[in-house]
């Protein structure tokens, strides 16, 4: 297999057997960054010298028999919300000009202990408050398959870096869908673990109730490897079930009411493949699905506004205009309505738990539309113009509110080759089981995207 299409699992074998060196792999990634980042704008900062040092150290350790595991010598990018000691964490904002991280975030410490090569910091929607990566102090990130399109967001640079083979995986954050949306848009596997499973310390917050951190990868196996490292636990050894005998519930109603026709078609074909493989599929709904967006917006904006209040007063002009407006809007949310939203959150947690009762997982599309053109603010669906922000969050934000683990897996593409993603959801605290389920279903859901 050509080097550039390798997964982490495949690369790890080659590194351990010394068929390739970490130095060569890192140089290859840096060459791609040099060639393609000017047009894709996936990176805000590239750690070329440090990455080469990390790679040399990895090669020396592996040669000496001190193999650390499957991330040893593997180039990983980090969303520029995550602190790396001695370097800026920009959050893609001029508000953070002059910031230097005093210490590594715990997720970075995990990656270093695993011997990963930290290749750089990726572009994002400013302060993670958006789903397109268009509002960034450093300009928009662009989709590697069509640079006129958004790679999704807010972890858009992360997704672009993995799809364009600038890194083998990226660590992103997900408050309403910001790992899963760009993963779906770019044909990657994106994991939002159970709430609180992976520390968000040392990561610029958007909403502490809803923030998650997780990987964007080329395969479910890779996502499980990175998840295991971030949890400082061995890659989970759950026995993957056979497809025959798996029972899934497909979320309908609200979750399939507004879908681009190509997404609906790809999803229908994916469910048909699952049935052919022996998976049992039943339909389910979430009774209060109409309350998801109001609950989400009152939690995320109130919490974000509290964090940004001082900066909005003193440096409001340093925010991008759209992000500033949304943060200012959050400052008007009343405490009683924030508390109502927290009550609604408990209701939704119960309803998702109920939907999961007696089945192995929930299945739904990950994003209602394929990657959209940069500069487009709305899309026509169901006879109405839907704002891009609302429609891209529609299928992911519920599981930030409830904290259930969710993973997006490629399930096809449009005739133009734009990726489409499916989403699997598991029980809270059972992220490893969800990954085992996803690994079994991955070949049936559909092929990934290759350049």
């Amino acid at each position, binding site marked *: 297999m050509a080097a550039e299409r390798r997964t982490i699992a495949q690369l790890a074998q080659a590194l351990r057997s010394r068929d390739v060196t970490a130095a060569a792999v890192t140089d290859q990634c840096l060459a791609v960054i040099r060639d393609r980042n000017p047009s894709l704008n996936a990176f805000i900062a590239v750690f070329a010298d440090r990455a080469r040092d990390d790679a040399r150290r990895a090669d020396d350790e592996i040669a000496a028999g001190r193999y650390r595991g499957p991330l040893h010598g593997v180039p990983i990018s980090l969303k520029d919300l995550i602190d790396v000691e001695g370097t800026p964490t920009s959050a893609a904002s001029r508000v953070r000009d002059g910031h230097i991280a005093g210490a590594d975030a715990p997720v970075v410490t995990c990656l270093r202990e695993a011997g990963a090569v930290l290749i750089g910091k990726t572009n994002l929607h400013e302060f993670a408050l958006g789903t397109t990566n268009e509002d960034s102090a450093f300009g928009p990130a662009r989709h590697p398959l069509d640079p006129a399109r958004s790679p999704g967001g807010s972890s858009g640079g992360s997704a672009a870096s993995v799809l364009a083979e600038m890194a083998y995986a990226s660590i992103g954050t997900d408050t309403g869908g910001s790992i899963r949306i760009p993963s779906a848009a770019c044909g990657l596997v994106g994991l939002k673990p159970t709430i609180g499973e992976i520390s968000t310390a040392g990561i610029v917050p958007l909403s502490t109730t809803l923030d998650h951190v997780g990987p964007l990868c080329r395969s479910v196996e890779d996502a499980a490897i990175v998840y295991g490292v971030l949890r400082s636990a061995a890659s989970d050894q759950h026995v993957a079930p056979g497809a025959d005998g798996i029972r899934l519930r497909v979320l309908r109603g609200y979750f399939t009411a507004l879908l681009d026709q190509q997404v609906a078609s790809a999803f229908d074909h994916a469910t048909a493949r699952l049935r052919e493989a022996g998976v049992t599929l039943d339909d389910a709904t979430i009774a*209060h699905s*109409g*309350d998801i*967006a*109001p*609950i989400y*917006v*009152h939690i995320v*904006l109130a919490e974000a506004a509290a964090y940004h209040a001082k900066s909005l007063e003193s440096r409001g002009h340093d925010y991008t205009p759209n992000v500033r*407006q*949304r943060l*200012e*809007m959050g400052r*008007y*949310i*009343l405490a009683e*309505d924030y508390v*109502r*939203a927290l*009550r*609604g959150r408990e*209701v939704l947690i119960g309803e998702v738990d109920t939907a999961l009762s007696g089945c192995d997982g929930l299945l739904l599309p990950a994003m209602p539309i394929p990657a959209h053109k940069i500069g487009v603010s709305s899309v026509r669906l169901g006879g109405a113009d839907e704002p891009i922000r609302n429609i891209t969050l529609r299928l992911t934000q519920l599981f930030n509110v409830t904290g259930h683990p969710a993973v997006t897996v490629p399930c096809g593409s449009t005739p133009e080759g734009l990726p489409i993603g499916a989403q699997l959801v598991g029980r809270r605290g059972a992220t490893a089981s969800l990954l085992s389920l996803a690994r079994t279903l991955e070949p049936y859901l559909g092929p990934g995207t290759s350049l």
Partner: protein
Amino acid sequence: MTIKVWLDNAVQDAERRGLAALRPLLESLAQATSALRTADWNADATGESHQRKGLDGR
């Protein structure tokens, strides 16, 4: 505070602060807040089940 009063106050304050562009966002937020307040899972001090009300009510 009713949503109507809240919205009027918020829009006036935003305009006073030179943020008149917030108006459509605040109007959209008002709709979301209305949905939140009229959801049937809200607790009620009277102990009666919550009834759906219009935008001007609580």
